């Protein structure tokens, strides 16, 4: 399965839910915000959200800024 994470294509070996993706791609899940195909998915829905081929996922968090 191929999904786009933060603009880059990622090959996943098996179907995964959003919770699995966050834990495998992010060091901490705290303060991670997810947007799947343009819709924000709150953390309490990550486990029930499965991904499919061609999905576009954004993983964002806070950084320094003025």
């Amino acid at each position: 399965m191929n999904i786009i994470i933060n603009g880059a294509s990622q090959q996943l070996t098996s179907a995964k839910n959003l919770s699995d993706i966050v834990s495998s791609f992010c060091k901490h899940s705290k303060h991670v915000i997810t947007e799947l195909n343009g819709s924000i998915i709150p953390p309490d829905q990550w486990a029930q959200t499965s991904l499919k081929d061609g999905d576009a996922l954004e993983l964002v968090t806070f950084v320094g800024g003025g």
Partner: protein
Amino acid sequence: MTDTPLVIAGKSFTSRFLLGTGKFKNKKDLSDSIESCGSEIVTVALRRIDLERHEENILEYIPPHVTLLTNTSGARNAEEAVRIARLAKASGCGNWVKIEVINDSKYLLPDNQETVKATQILAAEGFVVLPYISPDLYTARALVKAGAATIMPLGSFIGSNQGLKTKELIQVLINEIDLPIVVDAGIGAPSQAAEAMEMGADAVLANTAVATAQNPAALAHAFALAVKAGRIAYLSGLPQKNPMAKASSPLTGFLYDDIPAN
């Protein structure tokens, strides 16, 4: 001298100095600076997580009592600013947002029209909106109508340390707009922050100057003191400048009756 707190969207703050968190060399400098200046509002930004480099999260270095103000940097229009603000809110870290819409990479000037549009949408959704603008009376009036919580006019170009190049235009906003005026951008030295406060600005935000100083925590402290000094000076009824000299000591009744005229 007693002062009233800074009130933004019904929330009271003792400190009138806001600190930006960009460009710090390390996270310790940042946390030391927040502590030394006593800022109660700090700005942060949102970015895609770098999947290759696992960086530490900046929020770990910001004390929990501090109000987070997420900026919409990276937004080139109202739609993108609204998207970033909604993402920030989804984090559960509050609904305070600094609207920053920039589509000019040379001067990094904010797009006032798009900022008004984003403010209308986000204020209607219940966000506390602090729009960053080029100082302009009509834009500021439109932002008041749109439901902004403050107006944040720029002093000079972002990161330029040039101070209050827009002083006269900021003074118009201070005189005419019934919202807190937070002077943002270009404030490169404590003296410039004091100058803004002496004019009657309600607060000042600095980032680059502090973050790039050799000793950021010390400069952050100096900024906080300058903001306080400027505020007290404003409240004291600072006298106006005079075009001519006016003696501080009595000039008559001692050796001469009067200073001889030339």
